């Protein structure tokens, strides 16, 4: 009897959990998109994941749609998820949270599907990168760092939270190029995400780090880290460092995130999705999310985002080609 119970218990667990991971969909009523699923192409806790979960929550709170389900399909820098989106041709109830990292990953992974195959829905946010050193670093400002870097690129290891082709990798390469160096000489050390990089910057293991500001705010505030420059067009609130442009390095670089949908969806479905995210971007709940995470709003709907995507694609492709990575 007990054995039977144990078996039943195990069965129940097995049968109950998968439905937690997936669910059905309902028919649309009027303007609302019901049963929308958001694919996150990286692991729980990653950037696209946080954006997707925050957006889903804000959409539900603002009552723009109900029952949004976020699920992860990580792999190959987001291109496994991209492949899935491209294969779901015509599915108007699926979108993918993505960003600049996926653009590079398409090249480094030699992915058969590209972002040009998807239907752009909206660009949501931007997160500028910072050039950061520990408080004990000999470099007090960006000028000193650049001088040392140009003199001996090999001896100045640069850390970033993404592997080759990712945003933290592209930023120092573009910087080096603008500063008149050969990007191939840059000694780039990839780390698994911002956390591991943070430890290496704090411990002085690398000369400087380039990363999104997200996880670093507290350390900057407490004085453990020193920001030498920001990569965005304007200075950042709460950070005293100049922009790269002000420092004579003609680079403007921001990591961005947005939403794309599968190819071949109807104009109607596309309109409804664009509308949903447009209304999200205007909601007070979303503004609250932006504030809490320190993200900059960078909303661009549908076609506008499509053009931006194409331009970013060219820029990444050119940079990677110069590095001999493509």
């Amino acid at each position, binding site marked *: 009897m*007990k*054995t039977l119970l*144990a*078996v039943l218990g*195990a069965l129940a*667990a*097995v049968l109950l*959990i*998968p439905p*937690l*991971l*997936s669910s059905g969909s309902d028919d649309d009523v009027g303007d609302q998109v019901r049963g929308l699923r958001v694919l996150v192409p990286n*692991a*729980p*806790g*990653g950037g696209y*994941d*946080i954006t997707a*979960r*925050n957006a889903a*929550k804000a959409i539900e709170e603002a009552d723009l749609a109900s029952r949004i389900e976020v*699920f*992860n*399909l*990580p*792999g*190959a820098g987001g*291109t*496994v998820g991209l*492949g899935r989106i491209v294969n779901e041709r015509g599915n108007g109830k699926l979108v993918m949270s993505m960003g600049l990292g996926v653009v590079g990953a398409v090249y*480094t*992974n*030699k992915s*058969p599907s590209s972002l040009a195959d998807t239907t752009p829905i909206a660009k949501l946010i931007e997160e500028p990168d910072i050039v950061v050193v520990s408080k004990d670093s000999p470099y007090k400002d960006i000028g000193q760092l650049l001088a040392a870097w140009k003199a001996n690129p*090999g*001896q100045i*290891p640069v850390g970033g939270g993404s*592997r*080759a082709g990712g945003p933290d990798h592209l930023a120092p390469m573009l910087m080096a190029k603008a500063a008149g160096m050969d990007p191939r000489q840059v*000694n780039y*050390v*990839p780390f*698994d*995400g911002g*956390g*591991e990089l*943070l*430890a*290496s910057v*704090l*411990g002085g*293991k690398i000369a400087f780090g380039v990363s999104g500001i997200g*996880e670093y705010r*507290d*350390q900057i*505030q*407490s004085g*453990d880290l020193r920001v030498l420059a920001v990569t965005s067009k304007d200075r950042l609130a709460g950070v005293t460092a100049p922009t790269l442009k002000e420092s004579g390095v003609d680079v403007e670089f921001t990591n961005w995130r947005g939403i794309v949908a599968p190819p071949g969806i109807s104009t109607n479905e596309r309109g409804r999705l664009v509308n949903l995210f447009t209304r999200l971007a205007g909601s007070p709940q979303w503004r609250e999310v932006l504030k*809490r*995470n320190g993200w900059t709003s960078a909303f661009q709907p549908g076609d506008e985002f499509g053009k931006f995507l194409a331009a970013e694609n060219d820029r990444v492709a050119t940079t990677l080609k110069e590095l001999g990575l493509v």
Partner: protein
Amino acid sequence: MGSFTSLIDGFGTALTPVNLMYAVIGVLLGTTIGVLPGIGAAMAVALLLPITYGLDPTGAFIMFAGIYYGSMFGGSTTSILLNTPGETSSVVTAMEGNPMAKRGRGSQALAAAAIGHFVGGMIGTLLLVLLAPVVAKLAVGIGAPDFFAIMLLAFISVTSVLGKSRVRGFASLLIGLAIGLIGLDEMTGQQRLTFGSLHLSDGIDVVVVAVALFAVGESLWVAAHLRRIQAEPIPVGRPWLGRGDVRRSWRPWLRGPFIGFPFGAIPAGGAEIPTFLSYVTERRLSKNKDEWGKGAIEGVAGPEATASASASGTLTSMLTLGLPTTATAAVMLAAFQQYGIQPGPLLFERESGLVWALIASLFIALVLLLVLNLPLAPVWAKLLRIPRPYLYAGILFFASVGAYAVSGDVVDLVVLFVIGLIGLAMRRYGLPVLPAVIGVILGPAAEQQLRRALQISDGSVSGLVNSPMSVTVYVLILAILAWPLVRRRARDQASMVGP
């Protein structure tokens, strides 16, 4: 002692009936989900994140503490009973735990794991309370050269798990290292052994490899032989830990946390390497050496205590530095940010009440887990009474669900069964599977740290020995390697001097 008064206040918050209920719910949910292979603590916390949206931050984090520890614990149950590790931290537990279960000592193994988990978590959490700021500062000082030295140390200890035939042991290790090579090279973006498949470019999850080699390989092996051997159900012995078991386990329980905690606290430390180190340490120190491989209780007690303490170490880095050292910590960090709380050096000052309530609830979660799981151990162990054909069919089913759950991808199932077939072939030709799993764990980690160290030093070999810690570890390695020679010479001289 400011920490202790704050901790007592924390208990005051965590012990209110409502918060206690959240802790119970968290522990139950965590254990249930953790039992499924493939759904590790990170996935469990991410899946359950929406449930906590309606709660106040304190309640939510108390629930998280329960889910985190609960899911780690659930992973070791399937590891012991079904040879199907639920997560990386319980891979090592399967090595001795499953043989124990097969000899009818399943409930003892589960009890040793439960108590090990409790002791490890308690000591780890106490260390968190006492050392949080210090550990965080030290953790940052450890870099790639130090890691690589530790990896080398671990590789040297691999020789003790190679089994009777060195050649077969090394062959198995190389199979593991080869599987570990699969994926995109992080430094250059080069594809390695991916055969053009995107799904392989992140490499193969250690859990999938372990489940395939342990569970699938064995199920196929049993299926191939069941006709010839008599199908007796696995015996279920006495339900409780005997005095002898406790005498053998208490030292590993106490040693484990001191291996696990520091590893959890350092970036890229995680639980795999310390649990393995604990395993080899216990094996070296054990007085019952002939029992290893057939179910030595020390091999369960030590690694479980280590895994649990490494989870506390992870929380230490996350709370004091905002440094997510594991995937689970990254999810928890995201959860903190949901509530507008930024973990980091200022967290203890800014959100003192919440942090101490969280720490207090870690203690509570541990007690709850022990209370829930110790009586359940004999009940779980009865699972093995199921006749073997059904049991192994169930294991295959569980393993497949788990592999699929890792990313919801059919490719993982193919990978699972291909490696499972390798596991079957290894059993057929007498290759031990253990070194292969160790190879998958250590290989990629060692490669990454070696190359990172060399990259930072711009290719100069001196970059590997430029820190006091790495030099110390290398000296230790030399001492271990030289010791047998020294001893032999001493013995030779003694025998020459002798009559």
